[in-house]
């Protein structure tokens, strides 16, 4: 039987606010345990939550970016359950009335664009962390993360393969960083995902029973985990079994999912509106003000790069992968005044390659756009050849400074003086009479040999075009 896979994702994006969603404590990552948990985060008797307006702005910004409905009035609710890292015994979340309603995201898989529905996105607080190691049979609780603002983004069950799921998640990952609401750091848990996975016979309208796979914190894991889960479900059904609704945990070490709890064991969360918080109201004026802060979004930027700079879709996609790289590229184009295609080649080639090799982010690059433009200018006006430019780039990367000074100091300037090149050619022809004979006898491939000799003599600095132009008539006699 042919099976169809149905996937919906719930993505938790940690909002990049300075303080927590309901308290003034810092959200910075990596502090000593419980040093960033104030009375409110600890759930002391008598404390009350106060909503962080910045978190609301970020949620609305996201909603506007995916063309979603923004609720004029949304409500915070208490989700009740007991766990040691949940200090109040309830999580403040949004249930019936989320701040962001129906929206959509376009993904591209195998050259085809597909629109994925976003059901909703709501604000909530994160829990703390339970640490089961290092406590000799006991559990340690770190509440630094408790109260960190999260935006839970729920997709429609529109995804039909692990590949689509990854494309969707990447697209969201790119978007939240573009609009500066989340740092996207998956290793620190700032962007994580649960997947609802089910299968059904192709053509069947009714959905199959789904399992929720939790703990997916890398693009690689999500693909593997979903594929694994799909296989498990198909195997199960084909051998006469039944998929049960349950929560499964993905174990990256063993590459398998295992059952955490079944539907029967699931909590009754007893949601009800939190009486400590007033309904959240977002009026048209606030929406308009937030809309003004929206930057050019990735899809728009990509299209503009194609149109304005005449780039291929492929190059445009690479350059717009992050807002920072796109900004760097545009600065280089502007400052160098060079051909945008040339700039693209160098930004996606040497420059990105060097970042990757060094394993650093653009923000930590030793070369800024201005320095890089200096080099592009000299490539563009043929002061240096492409080959020499790579040497200059390396020096620039290693030692800093500016391209012109390096070219000057190291004498790397391209020789375009035809008199000088001619003299060198004459000498080479005189010294290699044997090869000249062969060439003239029809072995024209030897042209390369002569060009090589000239380059060797000039340490690569001779303008290749000029060399060709002068060499050929002389050899042809």
């Amino acid at each position, binding site marked *: 039987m042919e099976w169809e896979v149905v996937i919906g994702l719930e993505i938790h994006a940690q909002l990049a606010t300075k303080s927590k969603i309901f308290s003034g404590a810092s959200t910075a990552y990596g502090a000593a345990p419980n040093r960033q948990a104030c*009375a409110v985060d600890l759930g*002391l*008797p*008598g404390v009350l939550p106060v909503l962080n307006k910045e978190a609301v702005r970020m949620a609305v910004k996201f909603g506007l970016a995916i063309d979603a409905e923004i609720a004029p009035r949304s409500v915070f609710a208490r989700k009740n359950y*007991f766990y040691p890292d949940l*200090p109040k015994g*309830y999580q403040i979340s949004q249930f019936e009335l989320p701040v962001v309603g129906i929206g959509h995201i376009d993904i591209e898989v195998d050259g085809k664009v597909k629109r994925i529905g976003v059901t909703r996105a709501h604000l909530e607080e994160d829990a703390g962390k339970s640490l089961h190691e290092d406590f000799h049979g006991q559990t340690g609780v770190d509440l630094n993360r408790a109260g960190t603002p999260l935006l839970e983004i729920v997709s429609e069950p529109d995804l039909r393969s692990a590949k689509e799921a990854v494309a969707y998640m990447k697209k969201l990952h790119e978007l939240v960083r573009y609009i500066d609401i989340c740092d996207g750091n998956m290793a620190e848990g700032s962007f994580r995902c649960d997947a609802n996975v089910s299968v059904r016979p192709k053509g069947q309208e009714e959905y199959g029973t789904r399992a929720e796979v939790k703990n997916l914190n890398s693009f690689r894991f999500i693909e593997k985990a979903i594929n694994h889960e799909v296989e498990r479900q198909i195997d199960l059904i084909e051998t006469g079994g039944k998929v049960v609704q349950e929560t499964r945990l993905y174990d990256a070490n063993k590459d398998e999912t295992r059952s955490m709890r079944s539907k029967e064991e699931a909590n009754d969360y*007893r949601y*009800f509106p939190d*009486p400590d918080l007033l309904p959240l109201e977002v009026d048209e004026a606030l929406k308009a003000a937030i809309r003004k802060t929206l930057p050019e979004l990735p899809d728009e930027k990509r299209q503009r790069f194609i149109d304005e700079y005449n780039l291929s879709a492929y190059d445009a996609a690479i350059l717009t992968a992050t807002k920072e790289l796109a900004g760097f590229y545009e600065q280089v184009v502007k400052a160098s005044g060079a051909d945008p295609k040339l700039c693209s080649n160098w930004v996606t080639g040497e420059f990105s390659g060097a970042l990757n090799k060094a394993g650093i982010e653009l923000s930590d690059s030793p070369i800024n756009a201005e320095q890089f433009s200096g080099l592009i200018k000299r490539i563009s006006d043929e002061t240096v050849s492409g080959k020499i430019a790579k040497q200059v780039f390396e020096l620039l990367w290693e030692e800093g400074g500016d391209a012109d000074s390096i070219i000057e100091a190291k004498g790397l300037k391209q020789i375009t003086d035809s008199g000088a090149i001619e003299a060198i050619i004459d000498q080479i022809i005189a010294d290699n009479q044997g090869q000249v004979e062969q060439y003239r006898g029809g072995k024209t491939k030897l042209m390369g040999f002569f060009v090589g000799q000239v380059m060797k003599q000039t340490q690569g600095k001779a303008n290749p075009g000029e060399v060709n132009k002068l060499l050929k008539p002389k050899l042809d006699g």
Partner: protein
Amino acid sequence: MHNKTITELSAGLKAGDFSSEELTNSFLQRIEEHGETLNCFVTVSGKEALEAARVADGLIAKGEGGVLTGIPMAHKDIFCTKGFKTSCGSKMLDNFISPYDATVVSRLAAAGMVSLGKLNMDEFAMGSSNETSYYGAVKNPWDTNCVPGGSSGGSAAAVAARLVPIATGTDTGGSIRQPASFCGITGLKPTYGTVSRFGMIAFASSLDQAGPMTRSAEDAALVLQAMAGFDPNDSTSLENSVPDYSAELNKELTGLKIGLPKEFFEEGLDNEVAKAVEAAVEEYRKLGAEVKEISLPNMDLSVPAYYVVAPAECSANLSRFDGVRYGYRCENPENLEDLYSRSRGEGFGAEVKRRIMIGAYALSAGYYDAYYLKAQQVRKLISEDFKKAFEEVDLIMGPTAPSTAFGIGEKTDDPLSMYLSDIFTIGVNLAGIPAMSIPAGFVKSKPVGLQLIGNYFSEGRLLNAAHRYQQVTEWHKGVPAEFE
């Protein structure tokens, strides 16, 4: 000294007739003498009180400070007080030393008031008799075989017995007004949001409101002035500016329209209490008020609606008491579940557990619509009743409670009859409007309370009506014989 009003005490302090230290010592002595009999204090902080009194004396000597500077008081043990035990009347928090001050505590301290300690209360403010406290029942100074009412029973008893000039209380369904009525003092529950709830241990967040418990309306106005005002730490706190509550105390009552809800005078109301209330209303007629009968047709639904909403909210509010971070933890828990169930099972008393269970049930899947949602709809109906009434009248009056103080142990086995002792007060909390209880006579030597209910933000009017009544009556000046 102990029978003086705040205004009198303040004048005495300023004139140098006595110092705050002397005043504080004199009240500490009374607490020493009578506190145990009444069981109204959980914590007495004499040393710190005297230090605060000396600071107040320093201010007064320099001609600084306001009318409350140097005046002793005590807090209901529901308000977090930095460095002191804040028990909320529960074994669960018997070991809890608060690391911070509630806004009410810091505001009254900033006004120069001298806190003498923390007052007994029903456990987590759940009770109408002060019998659910982990620290034992509080006794009514008018009859020590009787309850002082609850949940602010310690506050009411302490003020009535002149152990403190004023005390703070909280009112979720009548917890300021009913004990004020039983103990013959003046109690005010302000409009929801007037006084910050930050640092006040939550029972039912949408109903809880703090207020002053005093011997007169005049004192209540002065204390409320210092308690009220916007607090950025409480999202439900009102941003309105605080009016001068004392400004209109002496305003004439001529033409004041008073409504008597017929539902408050039907079955269930003690005959003698009814007579006392009618006599009080007659006084208002003499003061120039116009009195008419009105109807609050949905009032009979207030108790059932309240006993869904309040337990539902408390079931979540009390989840934080889990034995993990602070408070009571059971001995040698076997595992996490055991830690939770025994810490909570042993740490909470029966009434608290009963309400948590009712609340969890009302919120559970499949019952939410029938209980919680329905109760919220009823709440709207009750608010509508009041809204309509205030289109016709300025104030509503009636009994605060159906009877005078009942005997200790009389209703502990019958929770429903206990719940009904709040039948006249609960509707006010569901609507979020302000109300007072003031002394209006005695039945068999026990005080009767008159309830005054006003529209939103009408505290000034309520205090005015109460004060004018207190100018022409002596009920609020009565002192229980043993505590004269």
